[in-house]
């Protein structure tokens, strides 16, 4: 696996997320690695892209995924 892929993976695992939320490393170090290594990207994706941030429309650019709102073209008739 390339370094780039490693970086991408580690940014969405539970341990990294808990640290980014303010959990001390001493806490995550006590947790089994198979738990801290859990990929929580699906949950974070849902929390961040379902309109929870007020007024943000299409905050993410690029290809739409199942967890992004797919905005449709509008034609006035």
């Amino acid at each position: 696996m390339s370094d780039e892929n490693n970086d991408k993976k580690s940014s969405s695992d539970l341990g990294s997320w808990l640290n980014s939320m303010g959990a001390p490393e001493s806490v995550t170090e006590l947790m089994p690695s198979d738990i801290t290594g859990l990929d929580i990207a699906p949950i974070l994706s849902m929390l961040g892209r379902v309109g929870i941030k007020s007024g943000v429309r299409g905050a993410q650019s690029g290809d739409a995924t199942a967890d992004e709102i797919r905005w449709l073209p509008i034609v006035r008739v």
Partner: protein
Amino acid sequence: MSSSLRITCGAEPTRGSGTSPEIVANFFESLIYPFGFFHPTAGLLGELNLSRGVNSLLSPSQHLEFESVQQLAQTISDLDSISVALRHMDSEEFAIWCGLGKSNARTHLLQLIEEMQQARIRVKGAQLQLDFMHNQPSARSLLRSLTQLALVGVVCESRQLQKAWLTSTHQPLSKKWISKFESIKVFSGGGVLLEEESLRFVFRVKWKGVGDCEPAIGLFRNQLVIDVGGVRSFVELPAACSRMEPGNVRLSKNKFEIDLAVKESEWPRS
């Protein structure tokens, strides 16, 4: 539906303590508990935007105050957005993440969803009062705000509006604007799937008020999302729509229709 809740829009809000409702805190605590991290973080609750007023809607208070009609509409939209997110969390991802049966996480999740549904019922039946003494909106911006409020299912009575307008401006609202305000109808939150021709359907949504605003319309999993200036309403789509390809949205004065084409590859061949 009747409700004992009274909501005042336009008055300066009474700031709450900013703490989360107990049920929200319990939910996040139990969600994170299995991983050895006990307390919900300010960061996560901040992401959920609870400080903007969702807390208030979830509280048992009998009188709520919002800065404006727009803020009330936005807060209800936030509540609905969180509800949609939580309902999707009660899914396979949630089961994988928490491990069903290993904690009380799902119990708290369902409690929180129920709490939000009850809050929604209270708000829909609430007695809405307008107070423009501190913040006098223009008739045009008020039309937009009340359209947003109608989108999230809350009605503002014309008599209440006229009274608040007269009190703050000392001039009656003109007949032209009264007519415009009265043309706004509360969105019912439903639609119907119709077959136009072989393999081609439309999902039709009726909403009086849609012609006077610029909505964005999109799809999120099995939900139709209608967005007016950041205020969103969600409509659950029929299951068949998940196997159809959406096309254009045709928008007219009192309705819009989404073109849907059946993806033949998604259906079993006879």
